[in-house]
């Protein structure tokens, strides 16, 4: 909000330069964003805090704040206003407020014989400095007074108010309302009615736009039709023009929620609506309307016909208890009672000392932001100065923080992958129709946003995997090989279909995504490499019971469509599927123009970490030497390694402690014969004795026999 330095000086006798003033206000009140020299004046751009709009959005209010932070005295003479009788106006105008909840106070003041002309130069200058466009002396006076007092004001042309069907709006529903002197009906009078708009009502406003009003919009109407949107914008027809002779000034207080929703539904924000939606002081209207009348009379010397004030329920100052001990405790140091007293008084807060430790404070009604004791403590604290408060480490009992196991495992995994040469990346959690189509993902499974910023943020992503694949594909433009991983949230619309029952603690799950891509590679090596990374990752979590399965999968078929149909497997821990490892389907890779095959894993971290086991235990090293034997077997190409391992393990017996595949080989010739060769190191070991060669020879013979029985060939 814009303020004139010189104007402020008319209300308070401070000595600070514009820059010094800006610094003081920034540290003690609210941020002054800039100070600009403008002619002989300075413009202060102030980021007024939203709760200080009611009291400090006018120059007079800001002057009060300046007085409190600088200690300078207010110039009381500058705050004066004349008195206006309630006299003649009642012979011309009735004001009716249908619901005082919507409009706690409505004041009208009538002035006759005005001359519409250009405003004097001094007034125009100030308005322009504060960012308002001068129009004519009457409208400018209203705006000027708003800048001065913070109260939005409006001026109607009395002659434009309609009176055709004077009785029409005596609504029978409101007969119970307490009769108010100023609301006495006089059939000859024109009427101002504050009511909700009726369905289908429209209003052409001062901005030359026609607004369709809805029954939630509060309007100012005459006997016939709306003449202004209450607190937001005036109507064009009832506005001031060069012919205007008699005017009605309006200073009202409206329900902030109503103004806010009205302004939102009409998509119309104005200076007035901004101020009203922050909830102004109903007691401000009286001062403001008289201040405006004074100014208009001064500008073109007409005569006032009196004032109407509809204010059924007066807003009274709030009284609160202020405990000195509590204030000290919240701030953290002892501040002398005298300081509190002076600080509060300087802000216009009256107080009486209830006893030695407590004050009863009376909050001026303009300080709508001071509602509870803590609000008042803040007033004292900021005037005391946060910079003067010492930094004191809290003295509290020592106890170690509760450990977050999920984060512990997440960090452990991340550090592991760092060691494997993986780069961590973050993704945007949004996606759109175009991206989903590229991955052949069904958009109906994705949670939709009410208000996306663009078509690319239409949905929340249910599969972080596709975001990572997209990133990998982009990176392959700059790199020949990539190893990218990340932990991201999957927002799953229907957990039952994507995750088997029992897993659905909510729709939001953390997933661990791993990817490897290598230009020029056929993807086979990368598949086994990533599988090895997963093995090691699981082992580092103390998980031993992991295995891989390639048929009768637990995850729904739709989850596999992203993957190569013959290069995918489900990762299991015990009997629980926790993820998928596979090569991204070559068709998908082509769709997204990837320059290499991409192998990826999609792992449900939310289930994974709960299966992790922290207690690692040392396993004794056998005192007896181990015997290593090698065996190479030629098998038909489609035989799974697992089947061969099963045969060896079954026959190997208790001494066979480890089988290590060290060669997996086929050349063109073997491929043509649909053969491959696998070679294993077999490790035999006993905890109790030194194994004899003869014992192992015997076991090896049995293994070879069993391999033979399968029709496989043991290479000699």
């Amino acid at each position, binding site marked *: 909000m814009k303020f004139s330095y010189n104007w402020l000086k008319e209300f308070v006798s401070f000595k600070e330069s514009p820059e010094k003033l800006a610094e003081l206000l920034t540290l003690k009140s609210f941020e002054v964003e800039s100070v600009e020299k403008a002619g002989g004046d300075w413009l202060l751009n102030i980021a007024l805090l939203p709760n200080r709009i009611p009291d400090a959005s006018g120059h007079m209010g800001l002057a009060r704040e300046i007085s409190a932070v600088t200690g300078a005295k207010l110039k009381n003479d500058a705050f004066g206003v004349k008195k206006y009788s309630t006299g003649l106006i009642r012979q011309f105008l009735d004001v009716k407020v249908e619901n005082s909840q919507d409009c706690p106070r409505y004041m009208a003041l009538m002035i006759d014989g005005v001359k519409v002309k250009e405003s004097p130069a001094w007034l125009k200058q100030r308005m322009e400095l504060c960012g308002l466009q001068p129009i004519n002396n009457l409208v400018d006076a209203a705006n000027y007074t708003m800048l001065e007092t913070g109260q939005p004001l409006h001026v109607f042309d009395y002659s434009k108010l309609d009176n055709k069907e004077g009785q029409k709006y005596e609504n029978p529903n409101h007969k119970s309302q307490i009769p108010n002197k100023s609301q006495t009906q006089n059939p000859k009078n024109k009427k101002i009615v504050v009511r909700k708009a009726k369905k289908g009502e429209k209003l052409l406003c001062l901005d030359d736009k026609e607004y369709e009003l809805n029954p939630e919009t509060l309007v100012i109407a005459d006997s016939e039709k709306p003449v202004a949107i209450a607190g937001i914008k005036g109507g064009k027809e009832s506005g001031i023009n060069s012919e205007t002779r008699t005017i009605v000034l309006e200073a009202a207080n409206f329900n902030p929620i109503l103004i806010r929703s009205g302004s939102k539904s009409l998509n119309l924000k104005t200076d007035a609506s901004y101020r009203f939606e922050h909830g102004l002081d109903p007691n401000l209207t009286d001062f403001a309307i008289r201040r405006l009348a004074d100014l208009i009379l001064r500008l073109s010397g007409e005569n006032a016909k009196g004032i109407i004030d509809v204010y059924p329920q007066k807003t009274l100052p709030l009284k609160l208890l202020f405990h000195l001990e509590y204030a000290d405790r919240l701030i953290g140091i002892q501040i002398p009672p005298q300081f509190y007293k002076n600080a509060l008084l300087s802000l216009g807060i009256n107080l009486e000392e209830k006893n030695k430790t407590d004050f009863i404070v009376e909050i001026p009604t303009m300080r709508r932001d001071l509602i509870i004791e803590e609000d008042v403590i803040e007033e004292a604290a900021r005037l005391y100065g946060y910079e003067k408060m010492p930094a004191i480490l809290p003295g509290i009992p020592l106890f170690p923080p509760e450990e*977050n196991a999920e984060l512990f495992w997440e960090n452990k995994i991340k550090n592991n992958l760092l060691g494997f040469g993986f780069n961590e990346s973050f993704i945007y959690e949004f996606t759109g129709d175009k991206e989903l189509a590229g991955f052949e993902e069904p958009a109906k499974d994705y949670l939709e946003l009410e208000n996306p*910023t663009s078509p690319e943020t239409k949905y929340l992503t249910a599969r972080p995997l596709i975001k990572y694949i997209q990133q990998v594909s982009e990176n392959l433009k700059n790199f020949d090989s990539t190893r990218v991983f990340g932990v991201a949230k999957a927002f799953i619309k229907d957990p039952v279909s994507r995750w088997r029952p029992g897993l659905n603690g909510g729709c939001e799950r953390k997933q661990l995504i791993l990817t490897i891509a290598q230009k020029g590679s056929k993807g086979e090596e990368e598949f086994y490499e990533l599988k090895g990374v997963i093995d090691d990752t699981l082992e580092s979590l103390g998980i031993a019971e992991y295995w891989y399965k390639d048929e009768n999968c637990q995850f729904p078929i739709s989850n596999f469509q992203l993957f190569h149909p013959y290069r995918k497997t489900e990762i299991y821990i015990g009997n629980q599927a926790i993820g998928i490892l596979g090569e991204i389907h070559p068709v998908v890779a082509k769709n997204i123009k990837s320059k290499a095959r991409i192998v990826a894993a999609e792992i449900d971290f939310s289930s994974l970490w709960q299966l992790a086991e922290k207690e690692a235990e040392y396993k004794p090293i056998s005192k007896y030497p181990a015997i290593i034997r090698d065996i190479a077997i030629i098998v038909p190409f489609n035989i799974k390694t697992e089947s061969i391992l099963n045969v060896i393990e079954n026959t190997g017996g208790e001494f066979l402690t480890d089988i290590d595949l060290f060669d997996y080989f086929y050349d063109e010739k073997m491929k043509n014969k649909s053969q491959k060769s696998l070679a294993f190191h077999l490790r035999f070991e006993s905890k109790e004795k030194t194994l004899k060669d003869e014992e192992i020879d015997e076991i090896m013979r049995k293994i070879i026999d069993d391999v033979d029985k399968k029709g496989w060939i043991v290479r000699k």
Partner: protein
Amino acid sequence: MDSNELQKIEKTAKNEVSGAKNLDELNDLRIKFLGRERGALTLVLRNLKNLPQEERKIIGKNANHLKILTEELFEKRGEELKKTEFDSILKKEWLDVTRPGAKIERGSLHPITLVRCEVEKIFSSMGFGVVEGPEVETEWYNFDALNIPKDHPARDLWDTFWLKPAQTGADGTRKVAENFLRNSASSLRSSALLLRTHTSPVQIRYMQSHNPPIRIIAPGRVYRYEATDAGHDIQFHHVEGLMIDKHISIANFKAVILELFKKLFGKEVKIRLRPSYFPFVEPGFEVDLSCIVCNAKGCPVCKKTGWSEIMGAGMVHPKVFEAVGYIPRNQQGFAFGIGLDRITMMKYKIPDIRLFHSGDLRFLKQF
């Protein structure tokens, strides 16, 4: 055979052995002088038996002496030659040490992960636990419970992504909201779904299930509906902090936060508190950090003010305590929210916030 002959052998041996150019030559010489069959000295010793006793004694003694001497000569020269030959082998193994080292691909963690871990470590050392919460939140947790009622202009401070209401799942009946709310305590309160605009809802969830004293931080991803530029993105990261006990004060807040920044930036920093307004705290303040780029001297980063705005904070508002079911005035404490992206940008001098989610390895591999 006489002593002259021995002298002659000695002389030749000395000359020839020390002149041997390599181990092969030396070996030939060994055969020439000490060879079992035809070595010069061997022959002398073999002929001793043909000499008269007197002469045999003297010559024998001298010849044996010469034999030892000659063996020593061979040994000495042998050592010399071995050394030279090894040296020449080593010489052939010369490496060009100016050639660049082999590239071993190292992995990297995201810069925000690095700073987040650092922040978590610092707070852990002060006894703060680390807590996470959902990113899709209800209106009640994100706003109402934090004293930001509906239709209050303060809501404009948080531009919010909303989820479409009552979306049905693939089975056609299940309301999505029910799934999200299954574990939350607010089934009937404002339950419109949104993407959390701060991690403050985590403090509400935590206070609902824990009693004071409380010391937690809540790091995590947050979302804002806004136009993106170098300084703004639609998703970024927050750390929310909460400390509640009987006497936790503003002075305590200053000390804890100073500790954080000193450790995080590894140097003496200053902080400045300015009055501000956040509905969930009272008093509320904005915290400025002395600019770490220019050490508060004034530079383009801090817009020549020497300060950069770094967090919002304050003393937890009684309405928030009320919302989580605490007895008013039984406890007090501070809460703060800090932008991780902003600190990370300061720490590594990263100019554009959008790099964080770009996935660009040219950026990520630098950390």
